[in-house]
């Protein structure tokens, strides 16, 4: 069972290596959106420090949305999805593998780049660390939740827009607790409670999202 899990992760990582532009688009989108705010608002450090958590999290949400479209679409087009549906392993395991690989190439770079972008907002070391932890816990949850929407809209016309409408409302809890943890840390309240909630959301989505995605893929592929 874990063979297929490993095979699909290795395959998707290899494909991402061969087609780096797709990966870089998401990353640059995140960098540009985050960098636009200091340019627009001007060098008022107090304001920037205040809005940083929200800006980072909204940018991460949108970047994650942007990457979703490609998650299953290419497999659907070239017939690889049919073979996944007919593999003798539970489809949800394969989905989990695909989403994990997807997160490694679209989510992890955001986490790693956030300290650099944090400097633009004059964030302290501790705040940046909290930000990284929230992104590390939150972005996989975003990928998992988004996968359900991507699977449901597979093969539909205008699927891209529909995905946003379906998925963005579901992202709201992650946004609230992600940005909230950083804000709580800055204000001195401590973000542990928010982080626990983010962790809980992540665990819940690891359990439930692959099953829902697998069911949606079976319907969409008919």
């Amino acid at each position, binding site marked *: 069972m874990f063979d297929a899990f490993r095979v699909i992760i290795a395959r998707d990582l290899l494909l991402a290596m*061969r087609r780096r532009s797709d990966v870089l688009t998401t990353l640059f989108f995140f960098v540009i959106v985050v960098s636009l705010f200091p340019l627009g608002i001007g060098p008022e450090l107090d304001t920037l420090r205040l809005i940083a958590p929200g800006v980072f999290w909204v940018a991460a949400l949108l970047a994650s949305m942007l990457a979703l479209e490609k998650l299953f679409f290419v497999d659907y*087009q070239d017939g690889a999805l049919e073979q996944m549906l007919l593999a003798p392993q539970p489809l949800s395991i394969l989905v989990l593998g695909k989403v994990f690989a997807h997160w490694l190439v679209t989510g992890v770079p955001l986490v790693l780049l956030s300290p650099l972008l944090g400097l633009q907002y004059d964030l302290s070391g501790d705040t940046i660390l909290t930000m990284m932890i929230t992104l590390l816990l939150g972005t996989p949850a975003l990928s998992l939740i988004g996968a359900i929407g991507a699977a449901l809209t597979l093969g539909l016309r205008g699927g891209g827009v529909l995905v946003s409408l379906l998925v963005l409302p579901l992202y709201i809890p992650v946004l609230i607790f992600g940005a909230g943890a950083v804000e709580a840390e800055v204000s001195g309240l401590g973000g542990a409670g928010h982080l626990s909630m983010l962790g809980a959301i992540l665990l819940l989505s690891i359990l439930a999202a692959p099953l829902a995605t697998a069911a949606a893929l079976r319907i969409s592929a008919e």
Partner: protein
Amino acid sequence: MLDVVNLQCTRGDRRLFSGIDFTVEEGELLHLYGHNGSGKTTLLRTLCGLVAPSQGEVRWKGEAIRNQRDEFAAELLYLGHKNGLKDDLTGIENLLVACRMAGLKTKQDQAWDVLERMGLRGHEDLPARVLSQGQQKRVALARLLLSQAPLWILDEPFVGLDVAAVALLENVIAGHVANGGLVVLTTHQEVALTSGKVKKLRLGWKEDGHV
């Protein structure tokens, strides 16, 4: 082994086929034919379990396939219209990924041998996107040579192949049937087998030779 009972499929409001009954046993080949749009591909996809029938059921070893999805999948090899190849992976990588996903422990050198037998010597490590249609089809069909699945479901396997490849594929299919395998395929050409039994099933309402 493979039993189809009173199968009916609808697409939207349109009934594609209904009341289909047949059985395929070990060492038999079922040749599906019929005019374009008669539902051949849909029937094959229903046999695999990709499409849910609106009535009736498909049974494998006496048990409905929807109750034994993983067990059935382990004994099935389906090659559809789409090859399922990744454009950015080489022929070897594509073949290895496909086999390992199907639960086989295929080795690198086995894959090289098989692609050579499929007439792809020298093209094994080119990305699939630079291969011609026929070569891509050969890479996809190479899975047949490594498969241990008793049931093969093939949708138009001969399309896009040259004469030599058609002969090779016919041999492979005949060999599988002779070894007690089951094959269900659609094609517009005659299928000759040296041993085993060929069954035919015609879908659609039009007479042969009419447009």
